[in-house]
């Protein structure tokens, strides 16, 4: 699990107020909220639609999820019966 702290200086660079939040907060606001114009906006990682995932489940970083996807896709496939 990872809940990365992102530095205020990095994220608050464009504004006068200090920004203070974690990766979970970032995912919540940027991936889970906001206007969706088209159905194509559904975001999927490892063939799972994130929009339909509770954020309590998404406690790893997106990059970690992608790495996990890459690892699982490189595993030998079980032979068909």
């Amino acid at each position: 699990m990872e809940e990365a702290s992102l530095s205020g200086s990095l994220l608050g660079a464009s504004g006068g107020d200090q920004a203070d939040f974690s990766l979970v907060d970032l995912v919540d606001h940027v991936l889970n909220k906001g206007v969706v114009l088209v159905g194509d906006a559904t975001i999927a990682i490892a063939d799972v639609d994130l929009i339909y995932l509770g954020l309590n489940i998404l406690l790893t970083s997106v990059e970690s999820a992608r790495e996990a996807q890459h690892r699982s896709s490189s595993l030998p496939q079980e032979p068909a019966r």
Partner: protein
Amino acid sequence: MMYVYAAVPAGTTAPSETGIDGSRVSVIEAGGLGLVVSDHAAPLVPTRRRLIEHHRVNMALANAGAVLPFRFGNVFAEPDQLLSSVAMRRAELSSKLQRLAGLVELTVRITSSGEASPIDSHDEPDETPGRRYLLAKRRELDEAGRRERQLKLAGDRVLAALAGLIEDHCSETRGRQLMLALLLRRQDISCARTRLEEIENVAEDGCAWTVSGPWAPSSFA
């Protein structure tokens, strides 16, 4: 492909921030709205860096004026597709944008203390396994009710402390957490944080809080 960050009032200039993957951000006009976009060769897979880049563009816009933030991942193969999608929802988008002008979001995440009773509790060894299970389940439900009341009280205390500062709020319970999204004027952020720190220092409800933001007002988009 055209990636969309946000809607802004027509005539808004593009932010100086670079967009996702270092792309140039521009504003195109559609139906009386400005759409903040960047060009990309393919749909964008979300990564932490890209989420931050999306957020930074929207915060630059929020700090400059009105912004209606879009969720990460709104991508259009052709500009015409984007323009027709916006045209269908122009009135709704314009109304929301007008409402959010000058406002940003703070999020308070309140976490209830204490753990629920374990379901396999052995407090009553003389009971049958089925009865023991049901008693444990009842304790678990009682605990969940206690947590819910605890979170509501803490949430009400936050809202009371910020009376006069917040324009709107919405909340969502997720297990042991209450997510409270607060809509307020940009210039009131420091004051709101100070008030939150003051009541947090005297909190007696056993809840832990974290305050994040400011955000572009995505919970109200």
